[in-house]
């Protein structure tokens, strides 16, 4: 007897994350969740809601406020044969855990001459846009993407919110998943049976000819909105979603630039030292002679994110600023 495949299901990004977590817990007894308020509270962004009730307190572990230690404990548990999924509430608090991530998770394998792997997944919310001010609005993906020994991914679409976790658990090394906090409420349709996604390739989310808009995480939607506006003005923009921030998929980036000969990198990180800079450097290195104009970037202004909406909006990349940057490249100079 075969079961007819169910139709697509409407859900939010949050629900997609939750479904992925539930599947992971159900599929592998070595998997467990650990983090602040993932259990009784239901998760700061409600991504883990209901999982404590379903899987019990051994597998869904509320931790004390101690980011450094529970992260290190996750690394230790991974060494010990488990497959921990940590939730660091937000990237802002991950600063307290960086020592363990950099000096242990990323390093133990090489430093021990390959004796261990650290099959750890760390999820964290990232980004600004919700008026939570300077200490709660960081986008530090670029920092993490600088560290050898870990993988960094940024699900920008529901399919990745659903699929990247399983792929991350298949990776024998630490994987950090950055979920942009503004995406949790985004709705969309997903197939009832989740598709496997890979963590190696960037994705072209919209095809175009005149300019490549290269984005990730929270800026992919903005780049798509910009592409729409550009189309209305007769400019055909291709939108590349980086998906995996470390290692970067140079082939897809360069492939797009070879086609369009122009690119704007869109990045919610602060401009100086942004991931956008790295993408620009790679295009410089690998596709310099393909460029018809210098690659531009639209990043966050170099300011601790201010609370009021009008200032926060002005600080962050917006479809309008992306459009303007793209136009300036496509229009002839002077």
């Amino acid at each position, binding site marked *: 007897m075969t079961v007819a495949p169910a139709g697509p299901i409407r859900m939010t990004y949050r629900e997609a994350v939750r479904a992925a977590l539930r599947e992971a817990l159900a599929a592998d007894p070595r998997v467990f969740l650990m983090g602040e308020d993932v259990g009784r509270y239901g998760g*700061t962004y409600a991504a883990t809601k209901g999982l404590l009730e379903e899987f019990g307190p051994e597998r869904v572990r509320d931790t004390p406020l101690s980011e450094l230690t529970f992260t290190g404990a996750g690394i230790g548990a991974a060494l010990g044969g488990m497959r921990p999924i940590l939730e660091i509430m937000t990237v802002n608090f991950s600063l307290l855990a960086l020592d363990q991530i950099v000096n242990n998770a990323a390093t133990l394998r090489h430093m021990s001459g390959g004796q261990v792997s650290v099959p750890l997944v760390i999820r964290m919310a990232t980004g600004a846009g919700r008026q939570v001010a300077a200490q709660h609005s960081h986008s530090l993906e670029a920092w993490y993407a600088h560290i050898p020994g870990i993988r960094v991914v940024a699900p920008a679409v529901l399919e990745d919110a659903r699929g990247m976790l399983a792929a991350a658990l298949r990776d024998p090394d630490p994987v950090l998943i950055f979920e942009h906090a503004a995406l949790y409420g985004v709705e969309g349709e997903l197939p009832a049976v989740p598709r496997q996604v890979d963590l190696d390739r960037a994705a072209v989310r919209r095809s175009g000819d005149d300019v490549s808009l290269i984005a990730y995480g929270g800026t992919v939607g903005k780049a798509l909105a910009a592409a729409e506006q550009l189309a209305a003005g007769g400019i055909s923009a291709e939108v590349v979603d980086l998906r995996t921030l470390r290692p970067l998929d140079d082939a897809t980036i360069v492939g797009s630039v070879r086609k369009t000969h122009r690119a704007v990198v869109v990045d919610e990180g602060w401009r100086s030292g942004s991931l956008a800079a790295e993408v620009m450097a790679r295009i410089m290195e690998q596709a310099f002679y393909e460029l018809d104009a210098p690659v531009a970037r639209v990043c966050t202004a170099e300011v601790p994110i201010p609370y009021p909406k009008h200032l926060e909006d002005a600080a962050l990349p917006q479809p309008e600023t992306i459009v303007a940057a793209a136009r300036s490249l496509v229009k002839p100079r002077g």
Partner: protein
Amino acid sequence: MTPTPPRDEAIGLLRDMLRIRRLEEKSAELYSAGKIRGFLHLYIGQEAVATGAMRALTADDAIVATYREHGHALVRGITAGAIMAEMYGKASGCSRGRGGSMHLFDVSRRFYGGNAIVGGGLPLAVGLALADRMQGKARATACFFGDGATAEGVFQESLNLAALWRLPVLFACENNRYAMGTALDRAQAQTDLCLKATAQGVPAGRVDGMDVLAVLGATQDAVRAVRGGEGPRFLEYQTYRFRAHSMFDPELYRSKAEVEEWKKRDPIPAYVRCLESEGLLAAADLERLEREIAAELSEAVRFAEESPLEPVANLLVDVCTPRPA
């Protein structure tokens, strides 16, 4: 039992608790109306702590607080208008609108801000006290933080450093029994917080945080020691928050019955009864207070509503300090 202070002062404590309560209620309302955005953490239930503790401090002491700091800011003397304008994100706010609810600052009142990183203010307080000590200023720095913060390593480190150098810090721990949804006994194996302080060499005391006079008395004693050069002190104020952690919290982690039980110990009615029983407060007094506070708050809201926004052109102002020419 702590003796009741003279009438004016006694009524002043009630006024401040009421001012906080009404400010918080108004803030919740304005949040629902979309006037206030971002995170909003209400202090309702804990008013006796900020009110009593702040009264034990003088203008030259310094304060470091958390994201749940409207009450502390208000009783420290930041006007309701400046607080409200801050939560509206207006340029007339006490942090020029840039900080919002979690980052109220007023350095002229030595109020060194709300801090939104749990435990983030603790070392700042140690440093402010160090500066005082090195400059020969006999004043205290009071650092407010929650039970949750005591699980962070920075808590132990900060107490140790203050004790090692005998710095004038009052570590004011508001134990409201929860860090977001995590009850203290689900976060810490040893729930006696005073033990943790003494293990770092900081003398510690515990006080009923629902009793404003007890708070006042215990804080006065502690601050006297701190200002007198005896080194830091730790005070645990046992209290409870009546509202959700923030405006997003569905409160799955505690029962309505528990909350109701604690509401019976609401610090404001308890103190009203106390004042009444001592003949210091008549019904008319209370009505007058409420009227005055309502007027203060509607003026504050008007001020916030009418104040201008910071021009977008000023986005990058104050990232760096203008350098002397």
